[in-house]
């Protein structure tokens, strides 16, 4: 499963592996946020008038909002004027193929284990790579377009498919939704766009890789996935950032639309820089993710493995509008050192015979705080709505905290909603069982934690399940004892 460290000390010293900085020519705008910043971003991206208006509207709305305080997280006040809202690797010229890309850039992604080159063909994964504010490259575009799948950066989609973007952008997460969604709507710089036409089963995993490189830059990406009738797509995102002492802000918005009988599977392996062991630095991850099962018999499934970020504030939700639609949420949130996570989901049952399932596994170690916050709502029309939620917490240390805040609101008498939660530490008897069979303490703990998270890991696409397991093992090192 992982290479076993020789000693515990060595394990403690395991540092964040993706903490390097790429020295690359970057186009950076001045710090600060005002209408001009937004106009500048918009003009740099050569955007149509309607999008700029939309951004400005969002900005003006944002000015009226207050930062939410309800989450179970503590952090110093964010100075929104001290952030760079646009940073992009300088384009030398319009790229025709990946071979022309900056070798430094390619090397960076090689280092991160993401090959932009054709070798990925073997694993059958199409990748869109976003560095700081812009999308660098998208692979397999042509093959995908042959079957009608559009997979590109959102900036490109604005240029090439404005009617789709205009129709769906902000339709699920409106710009007025919340503080961070409004901020994102005003300043989003890039992200991925996927469109799966009717009846198409996307033949490969689509994947976006997010990387923050520039110091003091915030990343505001926006992802939009549309699955037409009877289509299927599996999408994966991954994130990393260099190690820095300051906190960096990441405020993303993800919108999913599933039409009749469509299915979207969205997986996240989030590994932003979590800060050092004293809680210095790290990414503030404030993300709004929401999907709508618009048509009957549609399905949206969120799977997330959250190991990074100093602060995670993230509630991937599903609106179950179509009859017989299904929403799923599988989550493993691991927090160590001084990390804080407040994450969970919202399942809003509107259609008849809708089903949802929530499996959340929280693991806290060190001085971290890990909260599950979820809402299950069955509205009056949601006849025969069914929900099952399970959230388990595991505590590895006496300085950490695990919290559960499930909200359940039911207005329909045929709805059946169940919620179960447990909190405990690793059982002495389980440890004893392993040790008795010659497995040392640390391996035993890793084994037990892996078993604890298995139910969620099984939901990940195969290529990433292995990756995620390793990630969990690395994050956990040094937390035992």
């Amino acid at each position: 499963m992982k290479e076993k460290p020789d000693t515990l000390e060595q394990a403690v010293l395991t540092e964040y592996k993706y903490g390097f900085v790429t020295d690359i020519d970057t186009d950076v705008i001045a710090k600060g946020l005002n209408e001009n910043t937004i106009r500048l971003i918009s003009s740099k991206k050569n955007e149509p008038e309607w999008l700029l208006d939309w951004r400005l509207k969002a900005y003006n709305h944002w000015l009226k909002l207050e930062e939410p305080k309800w989450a179970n997280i503590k952090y110093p006040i964010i100075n929104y004027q001290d952030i760079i809202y646009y940073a992009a690797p300088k384009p030398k010229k319009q790229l025709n193929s990946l071979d022309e890309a900056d070798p430094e850039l390619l090397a960076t992604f090689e280092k991160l284990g993401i090959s932009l080159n054709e070798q990925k063909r073997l694993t059958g994964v199409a990748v869109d790579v976003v560095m700081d504010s812009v999308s660098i490259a998208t692979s397999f575009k042509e093959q995908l377009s042959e079957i009608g799948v559009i997979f590109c950066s959102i900036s490109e989609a604005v240029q090439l498919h404005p009617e789709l973007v205009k129709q769906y952008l902000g339709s699920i997460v409106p710009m007025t939704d919340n503080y961070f969604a409004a901020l994102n709507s005003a300043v989003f710089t890039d992200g991925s766009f996927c469109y799966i036409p009717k009846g198409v089963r996307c033949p490969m995993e689509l994947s976006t890789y997010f990387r923050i490189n520039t110091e003091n830059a915030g990343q505001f990406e926006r992802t939009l996935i549309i699955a037409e009738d009877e289509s299927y797509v599996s999408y994966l995102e991954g994130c990393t950032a260099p190690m820095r002492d300051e906190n960096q802000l990441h405020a993303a918005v993800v919108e999913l639309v599933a039409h009749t009988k469509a299915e979207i599977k969205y997986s996240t392996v989030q590994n932003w820089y979590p800060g050092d062991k004293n809680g210095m630095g790290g990414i503030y991850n404030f993300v709004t993710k929401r999907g709508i099962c618009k048509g009957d018999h549609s399905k949206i499934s969120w799977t997330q493995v959250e190991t990074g970020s100093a602060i995670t504030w993230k509630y991937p939700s599903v609106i179950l509008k179509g009859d017989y639609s299904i929403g799923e949420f599988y989550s493993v949130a691991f927090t160590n050192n001084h990390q804080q996570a407040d994450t969970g989901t919202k399942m809003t049952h509107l259609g008849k015979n809708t089903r949802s399932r929530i499996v959340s596994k929280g693991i806290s170690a060190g001085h971290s705080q890990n909260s599950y916050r979820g809402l299950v709502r069955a509205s009056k029309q949601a006849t025969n709505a069914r929900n099952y939620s399970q959230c388990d917490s595991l505590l590895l240390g006496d300085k950490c905290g695990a919290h559960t805040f499930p909200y359940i609101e039911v207005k329909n008498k045929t709805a059946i909603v169940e919620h179960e939660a447990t909190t405990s530490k690793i059982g002495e008897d389980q440890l004893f069982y392993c040790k008795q069979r010659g497995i040392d303490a640390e391996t035993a703990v890793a084994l037990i934690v892996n078993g604890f998270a298995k139910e969620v890991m099984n939901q990940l696409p195969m290529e990433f399940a292995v990756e995620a397991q390793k990630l969990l093992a690395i994050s956990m090192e040094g937390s035992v004892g």
Partner: protein
Amino acid sequence: MNNITYFKDQFEQLQEANPKGTIANLRQNGFDAFTKDGVPTYRDEDWKYTNVSSLFNQEYQIAENSSVTLAEVNAIRLPGYKQANELVFVNGRFMANLSTIRSEATDLIVLPLEDAAKDEYKDIVAAHLNQSSNYLNNGIHALNTSFIDGGVFVHVLKGKEPEHAVYCYHILDARENPSLALPRSLVLVDESSKLQLTESYTTLGSSDSFNNQVMEVVVKENAYVEYYKIQNDVANASQVSSTHIRQIGKSHVHTVTITLNGGIVRNNMNLVLDAAGNETHLYGLYLLKGKSHADNHTLIDNLKPNCFSNQLYKGIADDTSTAVFNGRIMVQPDAQKTNAYQSNKNILLSENATINTKPQLEIFADDVKCSHGCTIGQLDEEAMFYLRARGIPKESAAVLLLQAFAADIIDQIKPEPLRSYVSKLIYEHLAIQ
């Protein structure tokens, strides 16, 4: 709100009449907090599902005196009263002339709160009265504190197990005006003693009533407390009833809350486990019809190690009623080896009823075993079929199943006359369609 001016006038009159002492100071603090916090709205997390602001649009009177007679008290006595100490509160004030103390003064002492604050209990009152404000820091609690007047102090003496239970009857006289009552009581259950306490609520007349009650109970080493709350008032009787129990010595507390009727009913049941090895059992049952709204908030704050707590709340919501359950378990860093269980089960019977539930765990210690679960569902179709196949009509079958659902909680009422009384109340409540 005109009410604010009304409260201010009333408060100033009260302070002028009794300007000095511990209680006057507390009242002042309470009123300052009330002016500052105001009435909670749905924007306050704790009041998200219960809108109390409508209660404050009423022109309530904090009535001074009322002509409640002994005959009227007789009509509402709970079974077993002949063996109990009966404390009668009219519009929130303790009425010695209507009350009956059957226990010896060597076992149990009942004093007006004002007297207790002056004499030998001075220090005890100063140490324990209004500790609840640390947990219930909202405008409604502060309003009660602003009007501490005519409250009662109950002391079960060290090592005594009084054979007479304590019954508290809260009577609100709303025959002429909408009536507001702000009863306040402090109960001290001393070392190695035992207390059985029951509260019931009655509104006279047809105007609205609002009972904003705070009871603080302090439980010492080796003590044993049973607490029963029976809420079966008329449909326009609302209440916010806060029971704040602090187990400051290793002790055992057992509570049962039964809510059958009422307007907006909010119960705050707080248990502060401030000694190692405490044991606590909380039970609740709410059977709502009509437009009733019942909100049960429980809090168990584990401060010390080795505490055990178990909660079971069950409810049925029919017609256009709303049931809210919010159970919060906190385990503080020192509270290792805590075992805390919580379960909330609900049945929705009507298209227009709502159930909101939120079982919450906040855990800051690692060596704990905590679990919570909640369910919302309907009557089991197979069970219904089983009964109907045996010739039991639909209505009776439903009543039978609901009664069985409620039985878990009814069984937790230990004294016999009360148990059969509640059981009968519930049967009648369920059988009326």
